[in-house]
């Protein structure tokens, strides 16, 4: 029975990893064909880093992920603090509104944002969809995830600590920065990492809200896959991205483990 269970898990894992392994193995393939092995080579990595279009897309992807994550974190954290200070009814209404972009199909969010941007472009009679609209869309779908990860931390806050800081002579800003903010930090960091990875991974919303000449990596991958041609550079790119993602995951896990340890120590002390 135990062997059977392990075998079943192995089959499912092979199913999940097969495409990833295929991408990685064929990124080192000398031949251009996807079915034939022509010997080991690093040439597609060389081609990848020489490809202007892909490098530009990589740059756009990272820049948008960074700016949108930071902006969404600022707006989302402030929102969590404000929402917590509200009365029950407005709080409920606003929380439900925040859920719209989380629940709404990506394609509907993308299409409706595209309509808004084209409407504004038509209204002012100049400008076009591009980097700016892409960035605004990413900030939009990132904000709710930040708010949702900071809000529980805000609820856990003990208002007495903030008041105590002020009683001891700290100005409101100092008491926020030195006393409240450190307590929110784990939620803020989680939200920011979440926002960053969501932005890296997004295709659908980007596809509808970008303009001529501006692509991110997902858009490049899609257009190259949709042409049904063979592009081994994409394999090299996937391997590269997979390694980066694994590294990020490793860092997050280590952070979580450390926090767990710290909390345990605290429990022992008290």
């Amino acid at each position: 029975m135990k062997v059977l269970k392990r075998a079943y898990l192995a089959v499912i894992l092979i199913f999940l990893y097969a495409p990833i392994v295929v991408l990685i193995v064929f990124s080192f393939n000398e031949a251009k064909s996807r079915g034939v092995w022509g010997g080991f080579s690093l040439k597609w990595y060389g081609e990848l880093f020489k490809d202007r279009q892909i490098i530009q897309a990589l740059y756009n992807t990272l820049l948008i992920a960074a700016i949108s994550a930071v902006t969404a974190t600022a707006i989302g954290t402030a929102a969590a603090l404000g929402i917590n200070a509200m009365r029950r009814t407005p709080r409920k209404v606003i929380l439900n509104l925040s859920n719209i972009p989380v629940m709404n199909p990506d394609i509907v969010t993308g299409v409706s944002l595209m309509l808004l941007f084209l409407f504004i472009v038509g209204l002012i009679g100049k400008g076009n969809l591009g980097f700016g609209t892409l960035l605004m869309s990413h900030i939009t779908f990132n904000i709710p995830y930040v708010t949702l990860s900071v809000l529980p931390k805000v609820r856990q806050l003990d208002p007495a600590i903030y008041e105590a800081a002020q009683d001891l002579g700290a100005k409101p800003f100092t008491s926020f920065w030195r006393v409240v903010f450190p307590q929110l930090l784990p939620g803020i960091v989680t939200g920011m990492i979440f926002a960053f990875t969501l932005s890296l991974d997004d295709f659908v919303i980007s596809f509808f809200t970008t303009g001529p000449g501006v692509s991110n990596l997902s858009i490049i991958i899609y257009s190259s896959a949709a042409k049904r041609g063979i592009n081994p550079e994409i394999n090299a790119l996937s391997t590269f991205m997979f390694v980066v993602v694994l590294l990020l995951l490793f860092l997050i896990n280590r952070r979580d483990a450390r926090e767990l340890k710290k909390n345990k120590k605290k429990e022992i002390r008290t």
Partner: protein
Amino acid sequence: MRNKWISGPYLVWMALFIIIPLFLTGYYAFTDTDGAFTMAGFSRAFEPMYLSVLLNSIRIAAISTAICLLLGYPVAYILSRPEFAGKSTLFFLFAVPMWMNYLLRTYSWMSILETNGILNSLLAFLRLPKIDILYTDSAVILGMVYNFLPFMILPIHTALAKIDYSLVESAQDLGANPVTVFKRVVLPLSVPGVVSGITMVFMPAVTTFIIPSLLGGGQYMLIGNLIENQFLTAYDWNFGAALSLILMAVIILSMMIVLRVDKDNEGGTLI
């Protein structure tokens, strides 16, 4: 500290980029190209040609969801057993593929399933008959199951891991055989996880347009492709907006059904 006005930027941002765009979509859905009120978009969506696309999307998504449930439940079950060793590592292994860009993973299936692709080379090597499923329903369903299976495993695992194991033991002590224990104790307690797994698979499966367009071929149409087509190829925004509203309605409706089922079982929270 208790200053509700610092959520101001958020409220302005959400109004501008969530509420107004949805109203714009609604405006386009109920007007024609001249801006006059019409329901034409909606009646057109229910013409046989377009209705079959909608029904087919629901059918394909439902089949994929069912396969995910059949494949995913045993995985979640095995991983949640307390006697099972090395499960945190295994659990991590099941979560990692989700972190890779899903376009890349779907793109990779194209090279596996091609007529002269990796799968057929392997089958030829083993002297087995060829399988030619790329650009068919089967390939689309395979792509959906592949992409969304972890969304089924994770919530079911969460529900199963929460079960108090002494309940299982007391059922055994009272003479229940393994099948009865599963049917009468474990399965009912895992329903909330199953329900949220179904929603988390069904919704992206109904709305995706990447999987059908890559694995189904250029002519393959699900509702997502139809919407994309209206906005980016046919430039019929009014019809596209009407279809978007219909898709939203399908999602909200299925959410309501699922929440109803969940409530009947006094299940936990969704997601």
